[in-house]
């Protein structure tokens, strides 16, 4: 599973350097040199934690699907926002809270992390715990208690993108 040190180091360096450029929002040579030096130093200590796959984890297709995932996620979030707002404003307050279990086919830890956080960030659903390939979800309006049904409604909309990104 773990790939070579050099490849993992390079990936960490690239991500740190991108973060530096985003933070400084300038391309002045002093900033870039300083940023590169600090990224290089921090990557020495951080690469072991930051990535397991290294360069092999980054594919053009993955980047494309990640860029696609951002609008998809925001659209799901906006929809869920309106749904929860409707339930709050409605005089009868049509909620049916409960905890359901869903399954995921994702293998990598980071993919599960992003899936769990995406589910948490969409209002109405909240990831309580991830254990192996099971997720415990608190749901504001439990439509089905069935594992497969709940997986289809909550998890599948994100999972199909994440599966490609973290192949």
């Amino acid at each position, binding site marked *: 599973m773990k790939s070579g040190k050099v490849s993992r180091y390079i990936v960490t360096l690239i*991500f*740190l350097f991108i973060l530096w450029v985003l933070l400084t929002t300038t391309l002045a040579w002093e900033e870039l040199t*300083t940023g590169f030096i600090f990224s290089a130093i921090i*990557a020495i200590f951080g690469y072991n*934690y930051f990535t397991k796959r290294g360069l092999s984890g980054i594919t053009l297709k993955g980047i494309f699907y990640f860029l696609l995932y951002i609008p998809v996620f925001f659209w799901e979030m906006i929809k869920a926002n309106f749904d929860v707002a409707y339930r709050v404003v409605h005089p009868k307050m049509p909620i049916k809270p409960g905890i359901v279990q869903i399954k995921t086919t994702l293998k990598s830890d980071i993919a599960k992390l992003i899936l769990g956080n995406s589910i948490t960030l969409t209002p109405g659903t909240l990831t309580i715990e991830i254990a192996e390939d099971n997720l415990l979800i608190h749901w504001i309006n439990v439509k089905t208690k069935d594992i497969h049904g709940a997986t289809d409604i909550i998890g599948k909309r994100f999972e199909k993108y994440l599966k490609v990104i973290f192949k």
Partner: protein
Amino acid sequence: MRTRKIISIIILLILAGGFILTFSQIPFGKDKINVAHYYISKGIEETGAVNIVTSVVLNYRGFDTLGEVTVLFIAAIGLGAVLFTEKRVQKHASKSKDDKTKKASLILRTGSNLLFPLILLFGAYIFVHGHLTPGGGFQGGAVIASGFLLMYLAFPKQSINKKSLSVVESLSGLIFVGIGLFGLIFSGYFLSNFLPKGIPNTLFSAGIIPIIYIAVGFKVGFELTSVIDDLLGRGK
């Protein structure tokens, strides 16, 4: 009881009257303090730092900051000393407790692994830009320590090498004092800004200020990390 209440009310009234008399003498919104006025009008020109707070903290009052760093250092050592003696007594108790600590959840573990280098870089960004943006060595150091704290929460059984921590910490303290001594050699007084000031608002400006803030950042970050380590009772 009643007389006591009455007396306290009278005392409070006297105090309030005193405060009102004092504060009514102070004109608000006017330059009362000459020093502050001087810092604002001459600060950038004299120190090269756009952030006036930084120019005061590290240039006009650099010696004071050295004292503050020392205070933190002594506090960390004192904490270590206190906890070290207590741990010897409770050795057995803490051992059985360690076995009970559960593994942190996958979300916390993966998230900390992913964020740890990014948090370190963010801390570095804050202390490198101390002379340009709000922030500086103390804030950046605190951010770095928070990254280590996150790792401690996610992996309660792991421990970092305290020796290398204290080596980096002492080195950065030495750099601070060393730069101060260089100032004494080159331009006559301790911590004087002997390096070229550069163009304000660029990264390589303000002479010694960024270098000192980098040293302070490392020092504060690793010092707070060793404080966290001591508090978790895993120091050696």
